[in-house]
């Protein structure tokens, strides 16, 4: 059994750790609010541009040559994996990295090119000896649209020059503070088969849409923007998940610390009690001996 002094020391140290976790919890909570506001701003825009791209699918003429839609024989696959730069956020990085890793492994026969956004995902794939071609370290709460644009330009170039025949984006989708779902979407080539005709027809806009200046030029401009916004909104989704995950894990860490402190205090008091009892016994027996 540890001495009273040792127990006292542990209580003090757990207490200071608890304070740090409490502070991190509060910081994550306020960052979460900010990130959520950004998510609320980007979600409608990302939904709008998806709808536009879907409606184009139904009005294109299949003779037309549309960039980024050609399905080639898949020789190289690029994966964009969105993780965070910092740890202490529960299972957030592990979950998304594992999901991405399993997916990469399922396509083992095709050489992988991993674009790691965030230091944690980068380290995860490096340890497993995967081919990382690019690494971006941007603190996820400070991600800007320009970062997404750079990433989109990079993958578009990789696709155009044949360095990658397919591009996948792995990110974490934000459902609620407690539910984060790792998600894999194929960015390129764009799927142009009209499999969701019924959905777009319901909106009733696709059939009589006119384009300025013409549909081909429109598509050429709209697709890069679609890529930018898709990547940007995935980045924001991921950063919201990171903060939410950090907040909940710091919250449970604070609670665990409180539990440990309670246990240690109990131990300490028991020890103190037994020492007092022992002392009294000694005094009484000493007094008895004198009689």
């Amino acid at each position, binding site marked *: 059994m540890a001495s009273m002094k040792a127990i006292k020391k542990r209580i003090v140290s757990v207490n200071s750790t608890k304070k740090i976790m409490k502070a991190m919890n509060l910081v994550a909570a306020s960052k979460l609010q900010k990130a959520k506001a950004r998510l609320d701003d980007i979600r409608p825009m990302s939904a*709008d541009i998806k709808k536009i791209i879907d409606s184009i699918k139904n009005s294109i003429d299949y003779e037309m040559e549309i960039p980024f839609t050609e399905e080639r024989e898949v020789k190289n696959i690029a994966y964009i994996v969105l993780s965070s730069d910092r740890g202490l956020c529960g299972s957030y990085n592990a979950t998304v990295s594992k999901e991405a890793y399993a997916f990469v492994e399922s396509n083992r026969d095709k050489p992988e090119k991993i674009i790691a956004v965030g230091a944690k995902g980068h380290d995860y794939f490096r340890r497993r000896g995967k081919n990382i071609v690019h690494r971006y370290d941007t603190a996820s709460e400070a991600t800007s649209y320009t970062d997404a644009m750079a990433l989109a330009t990079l993958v578009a170039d990789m696709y155009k020059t044949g360095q990658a025949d397919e591009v996948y984006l792995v990110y974490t989708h934000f459902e609620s503070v407690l539910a984060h779902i790792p998600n894999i979407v194929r960015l390129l080539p764009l799927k142009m088969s009209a499999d969701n005709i019924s959905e777009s027809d319901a909106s009733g806009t696709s059939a009589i849409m006119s384009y*300025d200046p013409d549909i081909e030029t*429109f598509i050429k401009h*709209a697709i890069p923007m679609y890529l930018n916004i898709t990547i940007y909104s995935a980045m924001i989704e991921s950063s919201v998940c990171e903060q939410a995950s950090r907040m909940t894990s710091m919250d449970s860490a604070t609670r665990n610390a409180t539990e440990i402190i309670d246990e240690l205090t109990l131990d300490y008091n028991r020890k103190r009690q037994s020492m007092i009892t022992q002392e009294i016994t000694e005094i009484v027996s000493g007094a008895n001996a004198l009689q």
Partner: protein
Amino acid sequence: MAVANKFRLRVTTPDNVKYDEDAQMVILRCISGDMGVMAHHEPTLAILDYGVLRIIDGDEERRMAVFGGIAQIGNNVVTILASDAQWPEDIDIASVEAERERMSLRMKDDADDLAIARDQILMRRTLVQIEVSSFPLIGGSGAHTIAADGDKSGAAEQDESKGG
């Protein structure tokens, strides 16, 4: 009712919603020229260039610098998905002027086409910022006269003032 001649205008950028109110007319700078949109415009998708977006509502006209994007028109709603947009009051004109000066000097030394193209984009950005900030000195007059006779539904103005 005046309401019938209005439509909803929504300007969104990746960072925030810039505008979400009714308007009588909006003039968009598309890549093929300027396009005027009034209520009940036919469903259209258009590509926006760098330029000034003019929002006209009654006697009021507001201007915004838009740096590329997509305009979606339909169901009496105009949605502008801009890569970036700025209100004139958010522009620091002194630093923009300095930037323009710097760009015009740098373009003289640019060696390859790519660098020139990049600087041209940055330069155009500053030009749009300067144009939107100098409101109401440029254009502006006559805007509300167009808006005033816009009571026929389905009316749309198309003026190719930009050309090329």
